[in-house]
Every structure is written in structure tokens, then in C-alpha cells.
């Protein structure tokens, strides 16, 4: 959590969102969609771009509107703002990338319930000016994207022997089917959390 009392500097926000309070491996937020789409790099990348766009824009909008929203209904207003941007992402994907849209299936719509977006709107945009909120949203999205791409890299490499659809593993390499199935996503996320925390503990020591 970036704490509201500290002065919000762009560099500090970048470091905190990408690393020290990375939404996925430090706060374990928003992993619902993180795990489902990570068996192919291309899908993961597009999904993550959608999340970056939604987080940044909804943070900006919530920050612009914060004076006008009564405190009592702010949750539902935030949800509607987020849903609005997710609909844009969905329509754009359907029009320009129909194959990816079909592969992602319901997970595009599920960006709405991604806790990262709601969390940033509530914890940051609600109490900060628009531009810096936009930046905070973008870097949070980027932190999410980074972890997703790492998971997807290994899952696609071992599961299909390809990267971005191009075959890179030698012919004798047997594809590990388990890698493209759900359980491996849990194992990988567990490992990433482990590695991330270990490095962080060493830094702290």
C-alpha cells in the first residue's frame, strides 16, 4: 500500500508499484485473471495491456470525479467507471483481434472484478490529483503485466515449446502438457512469490 501521507513522487510510485508492493506477488491481488490467461504469451500480453489501460484510465477518471462523488456511493460509481472502460476494451478486441477475444473468453469481462483496479482507485486515486493517479494506475498495471509475462514465458516455453507462437525448443523436447493446464499456474505463482520474497528479505537484511 502506498501510504497517503508520504509525498507522491513519480519515481517512488514506480518502484513501489513494480517491486516493493507489486500487486501480484506482494499483495496477492487480482490473481483470478492472472492465472487463467497465462498459457500463451500473446494472449497474456493483450490481456495485460487491457488491464494497464483500464487501471490507468479508471484511476484518472475517479481522481477527476472525486469531488463530485458522495462518499456513500463511491464504490458503485468506481465499479461503473471501471465497467465502462472494460466495455471499451472488449469492443476493441472483438473488432480488431477476434481470435484473441475468443481465446480470452469471459476473462476480459472479469477485468471489472480485478481487485487491483478497485484497490488503486480506492487507495490512491481517491486522495490524489489526476495526473499522478494516472501514473500510479499505469505502473500498477505494469507491475501486474511483468509478473504475468514471466509466468506466461515459462508456461508457454515448457508447455508448447514455443515463444509468441514460434517454436524455440529442439524437436526432441517433449511438451509438458501439465504446463498449459491450471495446476501449473498455481505452482508457478507460488514459486514467483517465493523468489520475490526471498530477494526482498535479503535486501531488508
Amino acid at each position: 500500500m502506498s501510504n497517503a501521507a508520504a509525498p507522491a513522487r513519480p519515481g517512488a510510485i514506480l518502484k513501489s508499484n513494480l517491486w516493493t508492493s507489486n500487486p501480484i506477488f506482494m499483495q496477492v491481488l487480482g490473481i483470478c485473471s492472472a492465472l487463467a490467461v497465462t498459457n500463451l504469451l500473446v494472449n497474456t500480453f493483450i490481456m495485460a495491456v487491457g488491464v494497464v489501460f483500464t487501471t490507468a484510465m479508471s484511476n484518472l477518471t475517479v481522481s477527476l470525479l472525486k469531488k463530485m462523488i458522495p462518499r456513500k456511493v463511491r464504490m458503485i460509481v468506481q465499479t461503473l467507471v471501471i465497467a465502462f472502460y472494460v466495455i471499451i476494451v472488449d469492443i476493441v478486441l472483438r473488432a480488431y483481434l477476434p481470435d484473441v477475444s475468443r481465446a480470452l473468453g469471459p476473462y476480459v469481462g472479469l477485468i471489472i472484478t480485478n481487485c487491483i483496479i478497485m484497490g488503486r482507485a480506492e487507495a490512491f486515486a481517491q486522495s490524489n490529483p489526476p495526473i499522478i493517479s494516472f501514473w500510479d494506475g499505469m505502473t500498477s498495471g505494469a507491475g501486474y503485466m511483468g509478473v504475468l509475462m514471466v509466468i506466461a514465458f515459462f508456461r508457454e516455453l515448457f508447455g508448447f515449446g514455443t515463444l509468441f507462437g514460434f517454436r524455440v525448443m529442439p524437436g526432441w523436447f517433449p511438451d509438458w502438457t501439465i504446463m498449459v493446464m491450471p495446476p501449473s499456474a498455481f505452482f508457478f505463482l507460488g514459486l514467483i512469490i517465493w523468489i520475490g520474497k526471498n530477494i526482498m528479505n535479503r535486501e531488508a537484511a
Partner: protein
Amino acid sequence: MAPDIGYFSLFLASILTSNILLANFLGMCSFISISKDINSSNGLGMAVTLVLTITAGVNWAILQLLQSLGIVYLRFIVFIIVIAAVVQMLEMIIDRISPRLYMSLGIFLPLITVNCAILGVSLFMEIRNYSFLQSIVYGFGSGLGWWLAIMALAAIRKKTEKAPIPAGLQGAGITMITIGFMAMAFIGFSGMLQVQ
């Protein structure tokens, strides 16, 4: 066209092999944070099952309305509002009917609006073109599957509370790996039953 699948196999598949949590990764956030405690897990599981069954039916009807008006692209917003409204209504009804049930179940209801499993079931129902009855069976089965999974995880976490786990792996890390093993066990039977 509604897919050709028997109600009973749809029901079993949504509980076990296509478990909404372990095969589709939906509802993870509350799954991880609540599963520290068995009693809360039980309450939340019950609430999720109830809300899933009702919202699957209501959203099915709403979807037909949106389709006949040609504004299906609004479904994300409409589904979310319907879910929030159903949850709010349930909370009031339960509070009125049984204060005791409210104490055990009502406090979890507000959490559920942002549970991805609820919206996920509605979206799957749309993509797979389920009929009204199929939607309800799928919603109910998914709820039971979620309940089963969170109870199992809560029990496992209780057992491993005192286990010597490496420092970096404690908490979220080891939980993810536990869930991975659970997922392997649940999905292991997917050759026998499939839901599409």
C-alpha cells in the same frame, strides 16, 4: 442453441472437474484471504452458493432482454448492477427473517459483490449459451464446488499451520502451491466429465 448436456452431468462437472475455482481461477482473492479460518470459510461458501444460484437465473433472464433489445455490449455493467442489487436484497431479507443466519452468513454478503466467481458464472453462461435450467444448475453446482474447495483448503491450512515452511514461502506462497495440488486432484477426472 443450448448445448446438449444432461443436467446431472453438468451439475457434477461444475462441482468437480470444471470447478470454478480450481479450473477457471475465479474467486481467488477471497478464497486465499478467508481460508485461514474454517468457520468463515463455511459461511462464505454458503453465501456464494446462494448468490450464484440466484444471479445465474436472474442474469439469464436479463440477458434475453438485452439480446432482444440488441444492446448485448452493455452486459458487463448490467450484470454487475444485478449482482449488487441481488446481494443487497438478500442481505435485507436474511436480516429480517433470521438474525441468527444473518450473523453467520450476512456479514459475508457485501464481500461477494466483487467476487469474480459470480460475474464469471454469468459470463460463462452467456458464452456457452445455457438454457434457463442449465444456468441454474451450473450456478448451483459452481457454488457447491467453490464451497467444497474453500473448506478443503481451510482444513489443509489448519493442518499445516505449524509446519516448518521456508521463510519466503510462508503465507501466500505455500498456499498457492497447496492449491496447485488440489487443482491436480480435482482436474484429474476431467476425462470422465467435461463441461463446455
